Every structure is written in C-alpha cells, then in structure tokens.
C-alpha cells in the first residue's frame, strides 16, 4: 500500500513537472504584460526598466529554473497585475473554488444517485429513459446559458436565491446546481451501468434468494459495488468541475481560481497563469490519489493486493 502511494505520488510529480514546462512556455506566449501595466505613453527606457524590475529580462531557462525552484516552496512570484505574491491570491481564491466544487459534487451526486439507481432498477422502462434524459439535459446545454437563465429567473424574477457573490450557504445553490447538473449525466451513466452489472450478478441474486429485502439489496449489496466506477472517475469529474467553473464563476461573480486564471490570461499575468494551472493540476493529482485510496477502502481486493 505504501509502495503504491509512493509510486503514485512520484507519477503525479513527473506529470506536474511536464506540465510546469508547458505552462511556462504557454504563459510567455500570451504576450507582453508590460503593455497593460505601463501607461500608453511609456518610453522604451521605461519598458526596459520595468522589465528588469520584474525579472523578465533574464534568459528563459534561468527564469524557468527560478520559477520551479521557488514554486516548490510554494512561492509563485508576484502577480504582475496585482503586485502581490501570487500565493496570496491563490490562498484567497482556492477555498472558494474547492468549496464550490465540493458543493457541486454533492448536488451532482444527490441527483445522479437516485436517477442512476432508478434507471438501473427500472431498466428499459419509460422511467429509465426519463431519468437518462434529465441527466443528459444538464450536459446538453452550455453552462453559461443555464447559469444566466437561473440568475434571471430564480434570482432576478422569483428572488429566491442570491444572484452572485459568496454570501453564505444560499449563495452556493445556483452555481452549485449549474456545475453539478453538468456532470450528473456522466456520473449517472457510471452508476446506471455499474448497477446494471451488479444487479445481474450472482451475489445480488443470492442476496435476493436469501430473502434480503429489496431496498437493502439495492442500497447495500449492489450500491457499494457500483460505487467503485464512480469513485474511480471522481478525479475526472473533479477536474471537469474545476474547468467548467470558470464560466460559472464569471456568471455568479464567484471569486474562485477560474476567474483568477481568466483575469491572469487577459492581463498576461504569467505568474498567475502558471500558478493557477499548476495548482489545478496538483489538486487533480491529490484528488486522484485520494480516490485511489478511497477505492481501496471500498474494494478489499485492492486494499489487500497492494
């Protein structure tokens, strides 16, 4: 088990290292941040001075090495736009992002579970098809469109829920639902196919033959097995949530990592772009790792094999 975790951590680190090169190059490809920082009337000398001041005049390899060297210690340099340590900005935004993602995941699960199980138990019936369409609908509309309609109707007209910002629990509902609904389809598919497979298994048949009541058969004997694929792909869903979040954060004025990245890109703020991408990747890696561990908890075969 420990060997397994160590090797997974190493794998993630290699992936992060590859990513750091890519993001370093890409961030610099976006253009010259000074154009946005300096006033229009700035002279070439002022440009050169600012470039030196910000350390942008050093050779790329040197810049990269110092970036990696400091990034390891959690120092991503200073934001060119906000002139503050990037890590501070990340620390400000990350919790918002994680909380929203977690809430969206919760909503998504609480829709996907009943739907997926219902669809599997009622396979081939109208209920199954309805459940699938409800789930797939969420994936078939652009998230920003769903978000805007929700803001307009639920917040603006009906005035039930806050339209934007983070003012406590109710603020999570609309963005969480928008994000969550988007991934319901994927999760529901996993659950449905997992449940179908499991419900047809010998052990579920045996449980029924034993006289176990049906809801126990479904929710206990079958579900724990069907959970495995859901858990396995939780990492992928999490990264989809984080990615899609840019759009949702924009509509709901949610101060998360996605917006930070967006602002970073539009102001060519290299350190911010680098930091956000790496942080996101690191989160995905951590989630994947914990998913693997969780997987082992659910499935004893894995737990003991490793």
């Amino acid at each position, binding site marked *: 088990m420990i060997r397994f975790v160590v090797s997974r951590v190493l794998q993630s680190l290699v992936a992060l290292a590859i990513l750091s090169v890519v993001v370093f190059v890409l961030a610099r490809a976006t*253009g010259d941040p000074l*154009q*946005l920082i300096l*006033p*229009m*009337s*700035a002279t070439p000398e*002022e440009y050169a*001075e*600012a470039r030196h*001041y910000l350390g942008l005049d050093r050779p790329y390899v040197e810049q990269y090495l110092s970036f990696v060297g400091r990034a390891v210690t959690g120092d991503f340099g200073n934001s060119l*736009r*906000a*002139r*503050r340590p990037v890590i501070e*900005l990340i620390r*400000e*935004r990350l919790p918002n992002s994680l909380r929203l993602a977690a809430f969206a995941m919760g*909503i998504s699960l609480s829709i996907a579970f*009943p739907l997926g199980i*219902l669809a599997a*138990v009622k396979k081939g019936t109208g209920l199954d098809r309805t459940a699938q369409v409800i789930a797939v609908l969420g994936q078939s509309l652009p998230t920003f469109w769903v978000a*805007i309609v929700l*803001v*307009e109707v639920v*917040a*603006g*007209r009906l*005035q*039930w*829920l*806050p*339209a*934007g*910002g*983070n*003012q*406590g*629990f*109710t603020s999570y*509902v609309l963005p969480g*639902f928008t994000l969550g609904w988007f991934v319901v389809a994927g999760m529901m598919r996993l659950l449905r196919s997992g449940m179908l497979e499991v419900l047809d298994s010998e052990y579920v048949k045996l449980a029924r033959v034993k006289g176990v*009541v*049906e*809801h126990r058969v*479904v*929710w206990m004997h079958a579900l724990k097995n069907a959970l495995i694929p859901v858990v396995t792909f939780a990492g992928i869903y999490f990264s989809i949530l984080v990615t899609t979040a840019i759009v949702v954060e*924009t*509509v*709901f*004025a*949610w*101060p*998360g990592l996605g*917006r*930070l990245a967006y*602002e970073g890109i*539009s*102001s*060519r703020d290299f350190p911010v772009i680098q930091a956000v991408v790496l942080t996101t990747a690191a989160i995905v890696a951590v989630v994947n790792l914990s998913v693997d561990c969780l997987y082992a908890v659910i499935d004893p075969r894995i737990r003991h094999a490793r």
Partner: protein
Amino acid sequence: MKPFARRLPKVLPLLLVVLLALPVSGWAQAKPDLTIALSSFSTETLDPVLAGHLVKYYLSMMFDYLVGTTPDGVPSKDGGLAMRWESSPDQKRWTFHLRKGVKFHNGDDVTSEDVKFSLERAAGKRSTTGYAGLLRTMVASIETPAPDRVVIVTKDPTLIVPNYLSRALSTEGMVLPKKYIEAVGDDAFGRKPVGSGPYKFVEQVTGSHIRLAAVDNHWRIGAPKYKNMVFRLVSEETTRIALLRRGEVDVTEVSRERVKELEKESYPIHFRREEAVLTMWWILGPDGMVPPMKDKRVREAMNLAVDRAEIAQSIFAGSAEPAPIPLGLSWSFKEIGLKVTPDMQYPYDPARAKKLLADAGVGGGFSLDTYAYQLPGLPEGKAFAEAVSGYWEKIGIKVKLIPVDYPAFRKNWVDRKTPGSIGYFNIANRDWMGTFALLEKQAYSPSKPTDTVNDPEVDGMLAQVMKQTDREKINALMRGVYTRIRSEHLGMPIVYLHSPYAASKKLGKWNPGSVMYDLFFDELASGK
C-alpha cells in the same frame, strides 16, 4: 423490487423540496451599506501609483486629491485638500494652500510633506499611473515651506499643474501618508492602504469585493449617510441586474441595451453623459498612412459610409449621439471655444462614398482588416465593429473582422505591424487639459508609437501648445488642431456614449458626473 420503487418517488421530490426550500436569506437589506456592482475592477489595485487611475471608483473615496473637482471635472476649491492655489508670474512656481486639521485614517495629520512624498512617489520607478511620465519631465522640485503649504516648481512655464493634479485626471494628485508608507513599506501599504478620504479601507477579496467603512465626519461629505461602501465585482450583466432586483446592490453598471427594460420597472437610470467618444482610426505604417488610406477621398468615403444615427439607435440603444470630429472630446469644446456646426456631422451617404472610392481609383473596393474587441465600458465592442464593417462592405470594401482581445490589438497598434487596419477606442471625455494630453498621445507624431494621425500641420500646432502659456492662444491652436483633423478626415468619429447606471428605487439624488473612472459617490454618501 417493489418496496424500493415505491420509496424512490417519495424520496426524490423530498430532495428537491429540501434544495429549494433552503432559507432564502435577505442580503444587506437592513445593513447600512451602499453597495455598488461594477463589471470590472481592472487592476484591483489599492495603491494609487499602481495603475490606480483605472480604479478611481473606490480609490477616490479612500483618498483625497490635492485639487478637487465637481462631478463634471471642473477644478473646485471645495473638493480637494488645497483650499486655494496660485502661480508665480512666470508660471513656474505653483503654491497650494492646504486644508487644516485633516487627518489620515491612522490619525496622522495631512501635511505638505505628505504631498511632496506622494508626488515623488507617483513620479518614481514603481509608479505606473496614467501620466507619471509627464510628471517626471515637468517637475523640477517640490518645496514645503510650511506644513500647510506646498510649492511645485516646474521646469518650463505651464498652466496645467492644478488640472493635472486634480480628481479629473489620473491619480498623481492623490495624497498618501508618508509616515505610514515609510514605516510599513510599499507592499504592506498596497494591502492595507491608509488615506484621508471619507471612507477607510476595511477589506478586499480579490475577484469579489472591496469594503470600505465611513469615518465619523469628513469635510467632503459631513456625517456619512452610509456606514459602509461595498464595491462588488460582477462581470455578468444579467447577474448585476438580478442583484439590483433583489436589493443586493444599490447602484450598478448596466448596458445601454437594458436601460428601457429597467426604466419600465421604474428603476432610476443615471447617465454619465458623453462619458466617452467612440472613435476609430487606421493603424499607421512606419511612415504614416498607407495606401489606399493615404488618399483623403478614401478616408472621407469610409466616414460617409457609416450611418452613425442608426448605430447610435441600434447598437447603443439610443444612449449615444453621432460624433463629428475624430478624437474630439466634447467637454473641451466649450473651453477652447470650438463651435460644432451641423455641417461638421458626417452625413450617411453611401452613394457619394462609392463615388469617392471610384475617384480615388479603388472603385472595385479593397481589402481591409478590422480588429474587433471588447473594452471596459464598451460591451457593444464586437457588435459595433461588426456593424461598421457591414456598412463598409456595402460600398464594396472587403472587410475581414479580426477578433482579438484589447492587449493583443494594442500591440499591433503600437508595433505598426499591420498598417492600414482599423482599431477603435472609447476615449473618456475630459477637459481641455486632458484633451491636450490625449492629442499629444494620439495625434502627435513625435509621440510614436501611439500616434494615429501623422500630419505635419497638426504636429506643428501641438508643439506650439506645449510651450504656450497664454490660454487664448492655446485655445486657438487646439481649435486649429481639431479643424484640421476633421477636414482631413484623419480618423473616424462615431458616437458620443452616454453610460447608464441603474440605481435602487430608494436611492437619493445623484450625479455620477463624467470624470473618467470616477463615479462621484460623494453626493450619495453625503449627509450634508
């Protein structure tokens, strides 16, 4: 299978009900907050010298200017720290007499030392304020003969010092606490700024909001009407309007397109009239205009092809008016004595435009690249570019729309790599001094690379303005510049933009003025 099947339909609606019935919290209803939703905080900086001119919305509530102005940008002795000012006869020594008893939020007195420190800091290396460069070349020294007196000595005679250090322009005139900054350092100041304005800094959550709290009694506004002022960053229009409807915000930026809808619901709309002029220009080559735009007739044809009234009506939903003069900032027209006559307006005349093109030998049309981008305060940017391109296509010009974001366009503009292609800008309206600064930047060849005009006659007049200390002569020269730019069609004026702000129904009288990047919340917050 039955028991489960029976259970689920019961569970599902229950879940939904739980989700929907979550406590609907009323936000900020009872709180004595004035909440303002804006679409962009630009740099989100709290330090005025770090491009603070872009975010004067909140900075001007936290800091005092050396010279105050009215909401319409006229220098005023009531709005700034300087209660009066005068210049020496040679117009090289400007003395400002400071208001007494003004304190920073940390209790320190505001003195002439702070003014001197602030100006030097604005001219310093770290500074990226709008006109830091000008400050560096203009100022020779700053003297502080008394705590309430500061003398600015310029290298050349000039009239512009008071306007230049006023609230109407950039942030160079903001007075910062010397002792505090020297004690805590620039970075700490940038995180927790201390000023002397009517509201003091409480917290900033980047990407979300900035919260200010009122000081008890301030010379600018008296006893504050609102305990707190909260600026919220909400980039999506629909969301801002929903926030207004829910009473979560009191003032919000809205698009011109939605003004009618909100007026119908009787939300008061406050306009910043002629806040900006939307003007288009050709990117120059290394040696100025390139063919076919080198031909005056082509420039005129392109101007005549555009139906400005229709654009004002449709794209800008009527909250705009056709503009007659390229780069023409209308506020200054009165000051410099320029009278805009109806014949200066470009008529919509595609037939004549076609003929002009034919005369110029490009009757078969030519290909033209037009950049399309959004700008702060101009959400209609792309649609506008598409609409104008549509008009040009109708006279036979083959337009290729190039969507970019503004920084990318700006690079193409100043690098002059794509001469002959079209760009545009919504230039914030300003007084004669600001107008001159604009002309200097965008119409004066020696100011490369931002020049868009490249005309020797214009260059000559602008060079004279800089040395001139007689207002009348300055005015005449500037009238000359505008007349020349208009008659040579050295650019394409499109419309003057009125920018709407919607307010909650219980909000009082408010003139948001039209000073760039400032909304003059003083009036709303004032208990006077």
